[in-house]
């Protein structure tokens, strides 16, 4: 088995390459304090650097630690969960709403063009409107590619809970994509193709 270099310098080199991925993940998980979240992650990762088996796994390893730090922060804040009633989100379909409201009457590819109107910062604002319970699984699954079983382990909740939160999170995300564009006049800003 290849011996891995576990010096401070090698940690700095590995972690430095992952800073953008860690920072942008943190920015999607929290409104404020993304840098603090990354710094705490780096500290915790450095302390457990010896547990990293392969340098090639450094990216996912660091992201898992970041999610652990995020989860611990949530627990410390000890806010009551903001579970959404099923019927509050279940009925909304952005696909149907776009057809019915036709916000881009000159578009031949309405649904595609609607999504393209959102810059990355807009998407972040939409995500941040979701309660953390729903935002975190959505970000981890569909933006960072974690498997649902791993999300369940990282967030320390049953798999069924993750699946239910993903479902409600997706619906809520669709609702907020619609509401955000309405409230901010996004489609009037000339960003639409």
């Amino acid at each position, binding site marked *: 088995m290849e011996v891995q270099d576990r010096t401070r310098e090698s940690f700095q080199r590995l972690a430095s390459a992952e*800073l953008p991925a860690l920072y942008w993940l943190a920015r999607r998980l929290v409104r404020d304090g993304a*840098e603090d979240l990354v710094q705490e992650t780096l500290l915790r990762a450095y302390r457990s650097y010896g547990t990293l088996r392969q340098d090639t796994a450094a990216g996912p390893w660091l992201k898992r630690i970041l999610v652990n730090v995020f989860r611990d922060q949530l627990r410390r804040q000890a806010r009551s969960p903001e579970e959404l009633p099923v019927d509050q989100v279940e009925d909304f379909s952005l696909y*149907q709403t776009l057809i019915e409201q036709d916000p881009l009457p000159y578009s031949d590819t309405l649904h595609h063009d609607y999504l393209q109107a959102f810059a990355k910062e807009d998407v972040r604002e939409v995500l941040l409107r979701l309660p953390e319970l729903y935002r975190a699984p959505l970000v981890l699954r569909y933006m960072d590619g974690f498997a649902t079983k791993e999300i369940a382990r990282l967030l320390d909740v049953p798999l069924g809970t993750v699946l239910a939160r993903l479902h409600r999170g997706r619906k809520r995300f669709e609702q907020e994509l619609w509401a955000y564009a309405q409230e901010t006049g996004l489609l009037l800003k000339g960003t639409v193709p």
Partner: protein
Amino acid sequence: MTVKPGPIPCSEAVRQLWDYLDHAVTPEDQEKVEQHLSFCRSCCGELEFATQLRGFLASQGAEELPSHVKARLERFLADL
């Protein structure tokens, strides 16, 4: 003898679309969803949009760090 699954309503098909795209449904549910999609144009549209939305989310990946953030984090790393 295999029993063909009964039809499911649009609400049920739409509820399962993302799990269907994730290959996270049972073979029975997969068959039910596909059977529904075989005759429901609206749900085919929902499926296409779900695929677009997944691609849209996946495309929101990491970019370059803002220079001031990069400088602070690099300094933090150097001080470890």
